[in-house]
């Protein structure tokens, strides 16, 4: 048995330091929402629609209300400020007169025990009149399709803004088709002429189903009101200030009447940005005047969470025989489920922006269907979009017998090249990561390796490149000097993956002390500086910049105090081993502890050191990753075995390499799941046919090899110590890399995810490969 204390060297930015809350996490002591047990707690359950589209004729809650132990039963009628035309899922707290997806909440119960709440749900009688439903997005786009939203509902583009800060012109006149909620079109040059002058034209349609973010902790929230009408929410959220704003908007109360305490978040990946169950739980707590907790079941998560959208991408490319790009025609259809909110712009921009197409016509449609509405999922719609582009690029290279890396490299964007929306690409490491992966022995030796297979299985090697523009959001941080000479850093940043230790490292290096002397706290919405979401690969890039500036501010204040105390010029001072000294005169100094103490003494004239920063940002820092797979395909069963997987990523500067590698590995495995096994499968009536983790299969340790990570550092000009966003790029290339490897192994080009054994075996039979 070792002791709780871990010893480590003195360190700042650039070294691997385990997160300080690790011991709490491995001993089960960390508290998630479902672990909090306040006195008088009530348990909430929601009655959900069994139909994808139906009119609510009547609801009878009398029997449920009469059940002993039931404290509240609510329907839309009990929440007078609920309005039709809900612009977001959060606003549709309970269905008013119509349900628009299977699993939509219709009634809510709070009871003494979860089992009593469950029993009460069974006693609520709802009479529905079932209506025709739009399930297939391509059919839902057609005029005359059963409408999803109430006429006049506005599209929700806030997710796109929060996530990617991609500017795109909103398109044209409003659509005639009733379920098209957003559309965009971007054109350049004369694609018709480009196609006419092309030697090789390739048309393919790529399909990716809805997939769930798969966080292990289901959505959970605890709500309580005090006697002054202040609502406190203990939330599993990726952004407490965002949750506060959304709940305030939905409930129609000022934000200063809500306090959101971000509890340890058991994974979010984009699925815990938008409010979901917080408003109804708050209303139940208000009505019962008791603390109320709601924890979604896994079945509810899969049936009625906020998954990633289904994406259908049609690509037509025209190139010359020598590989010169001529024209791109692309159309992306994003099935957003029952409410608008998909990041259409990301897909539209990436379709034509990664390689330099001289002419293009790129169109994007967000379509509503009677399915659960979607949300972000780690680089939202980028893996789906890059699956199409990188499959297509590989196929073109193969058809024209070009080296697929050279072909990509020749046309790949670099800093200053225009994106399809006309904005210039910012500094990025796209070429560096592609070049680094092409140098990998697995790529260099691919031909020998493929032919060396001996077990009757077919071997293949494939790679793909993908990128993410990187998010931005204003944010704040403070850095305080303690009387013991240590630093206290405060932000509102929700730490899921271990970002706080990296922020502490930034503060340590910027101020000039060891990371061990920095303690970082995530405050709540009452105590912390305004802080953005843990999303968009922007925590280190933006909050890190705020912490850096606040630490520099604290250092400047510290030096001002020291200069006065030492009667020296501030420019002659240095900070070494916790002591500010006059350069060259190590005996003439004052310790940080002394300065800290002076700031906390009765009648002291020394101000306490409090560095602060609250920056806003304008310059994005795109992050690129390249991934390579070596795999075997069993031609009889269609089963794929991944033998090696390599992740190369430009991170600008690895503040904490251990944390960076964890992001690279975790992101890759999520999209390997998207590539091979995952998909929410809806039948024609809009019923989810795989609502359990037995049937919605995520990859396990036994499905995977060790993942090799290679960090590339192309400094981001505005990033703290050159760092750029890390979280999202590694989820992007894998599906295309796997598809390319499968083709290398079998000759079959798979264009629909997941590439499960059935699809692969069928492709091999049909294609006679």
């Amino acid at each position: 048995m070792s002791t709780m204390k871990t010893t480590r060297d003195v360190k700042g930015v650039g070294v691997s330091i385990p997160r300080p809350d690790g011991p709490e996490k491995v001993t089960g002591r960390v508290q998630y929402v479902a672990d909090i047990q306040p006195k008088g707690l009530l348990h909430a359950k929601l009655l959900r629609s069994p139909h994808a589209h139906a009119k609510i004729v009547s609801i009878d809650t009398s029997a449920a209300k009469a059940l002993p132990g039931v404290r509240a039963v609510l329907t839309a009628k009990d929440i007078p400020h609920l309005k039709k035309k809900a612009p977001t899922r959060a606003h549709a707290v309970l269905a008013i007169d119509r349900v628009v997806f299977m699993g939509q909440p219709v009634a809510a119960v709070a009871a003494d025990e979860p089992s009593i709440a469950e029993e009460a749900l069974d006693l609520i009688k709802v009479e529905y009149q079932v209506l025709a439903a739009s399930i297939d997005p391509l059919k839902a786009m057609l005029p005359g399709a059963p409408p999803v939203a109430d006429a006049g509902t506005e599209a929700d583009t806030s997710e796109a803004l929060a996530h990617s800060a991609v500017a795109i012109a909103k398109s044209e006149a409003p659509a005639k088709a009733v379920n098209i909620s957003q559309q965009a079109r971007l054109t350049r040059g004369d694609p018709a002429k480009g196609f006419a002058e092309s030697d090789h034209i390739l048309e393919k349609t790529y399909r990716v189903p809805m997939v769930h973010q798969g966080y292990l902790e289901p959505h959970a929230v605890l709500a309580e009101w005090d006697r002054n009408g202040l609502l406190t929410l203990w939330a599993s959220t990726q952004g407490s200030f965002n949750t506060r704003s959304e709940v305030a908007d939905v409930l129609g109360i000022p934000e200063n009447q809500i306090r959101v305490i971000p509890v340890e978040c058991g994974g979010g990946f984009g699925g815990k940005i938008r409010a979901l169950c917080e408003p109804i739980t708050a209303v139940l707590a208000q009505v019962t005047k008791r603390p109320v907790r709601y924890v979604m079941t896994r079945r509810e998560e899969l049936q009625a969470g906020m998954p990633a959208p289904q994406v259908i991408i049609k690509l037509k490319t025209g190139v010359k025989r020598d590989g010169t790009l001529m024209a791109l025609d692309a159309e992306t259809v994003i099935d957003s489920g029952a409410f608008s909110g998909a990041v259409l712009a990301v897909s539209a921009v990436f379709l034509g922006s990664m390689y330099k197409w001289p002419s293009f016509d790129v169109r994007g449609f967000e379509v509503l269907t009677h399915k659960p509405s979607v949300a972000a999922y780690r680089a939202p719609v980028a893996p789906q979009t890059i699956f199409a582009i990188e499959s297509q690029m590989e196929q073109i290279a193969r058809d024209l017998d070009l080296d697929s890396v050279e072909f990509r490299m020749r046309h790949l964007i670099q800093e200053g090249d225009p994106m399809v929306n006309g904005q210039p690409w910012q500094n990025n490491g796209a070429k560096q990561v592609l070049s680094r992966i092409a140098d990998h022995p697995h790529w260099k030796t691919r031909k020998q390796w493929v032919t060396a297979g001996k077990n009757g299985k077919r071997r293949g090697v494939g790679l793909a490149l993908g990128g993410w523009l990187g998010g931005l959001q204003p944010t704040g941080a403070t850095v305080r000097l303690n009387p013991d000479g240590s630093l206290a850093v405060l932000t509102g940043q929700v730490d899921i993956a271990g970002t706080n230790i990296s922020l502490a490292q930034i503060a340590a290096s910027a101020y000039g002390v060891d990371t061990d002397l920095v303690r970082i706290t995530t405050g709540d919405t009452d105590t912390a500086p305004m802080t953005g979401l843990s999303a968009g690969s922007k925590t280190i890039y933006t909050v890190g910049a705020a912490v850096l500036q606040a630490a520099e501010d604290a250092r400047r204040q510290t030096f001002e105090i020291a200069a006065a105390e030492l009667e020296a010029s501030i420019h002659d001072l240095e900070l070494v081993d916790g002591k500010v000294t006059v350069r060259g005169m190590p005996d003439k100094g004052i310790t940080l502890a002394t300065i800290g103490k002076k700031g906390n003494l009765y009648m002291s004239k020394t101000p306490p050191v409090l560095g602060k920063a609250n920056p806003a940002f304008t310059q994005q820092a795109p992050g690129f990753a390249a991934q390579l797979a070596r795999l075997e395909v069993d031609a009889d069963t269609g089963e794929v075995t991944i033998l090696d997987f390599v992740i190369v990523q430009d991170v600008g500067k690895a503040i904490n390499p251990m944390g960076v590698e964890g992001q690279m590995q975790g992101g890759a495995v999520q999209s390997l799941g998207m590539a091979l096994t995952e998909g929410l499968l809806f039948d024609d009536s809009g019923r989810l046919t795989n609502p359990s983790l037995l049937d919605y299969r995520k990859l396990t340790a036994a499905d995977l090899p060790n993942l090799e990570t290679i960090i590339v550092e192309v400094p981001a000009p505005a990033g703290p110590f050159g760092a750029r966003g890390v979280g999202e790029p590694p989820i992007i290339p894998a599906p295309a890399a796997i598809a390319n490897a499968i083709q290398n192994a079998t000759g079959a080009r798979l264009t629909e995810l997941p590439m499960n054994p059935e699809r692969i075996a069928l492709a091999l039979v049909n294609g006679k490969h």
Partner: protein
Amino acid sequence: MAKHVLSCTVNGEPVEVLVQPYVNLLDALREDMGLTGPKEGCGTGDCGACTVHVDGKVVASCLMLAMQARGRKVRTIEGLAGAGTLHPLQDAFVRHGVPQCGFCIPGVLMAAAALLEENPRPSEEEIRYGIAGNLCRCTGYTTMVAAISEAAGTLASQRSAR
């Protein structure tokens, strides 16, 4: 429904609690004994977040009725190491930076502990199969496998030192 008396040993201590006959072991541990280390990720035995040991064997505590633990020895993540100490597995998980969101970690550690008790020097493949019943969405499993392998070595050298 009348509650039943559940007498069993939990983390080495004798325990007596009143539980409903339909309550599963996970809820009894979490709600009645205050042991919230085991987590509910699915409630159907598919994710492994609720993994505990019952008489030394790995059990998905969401799939076992609490009353089935009567007279048996239950061990949860809270009992993996002595107070104020870390088990070599926990120590290795911390140093390898395994926990991200951390929700799966208690279950993974209990599965890994049972594996090492049964098979003190597992191969990489055996480790991967040993935790195949535990879903993790953050790590990609690579650091987990490395940490378990290292902890197996630590435990082996501790045994040979004794």
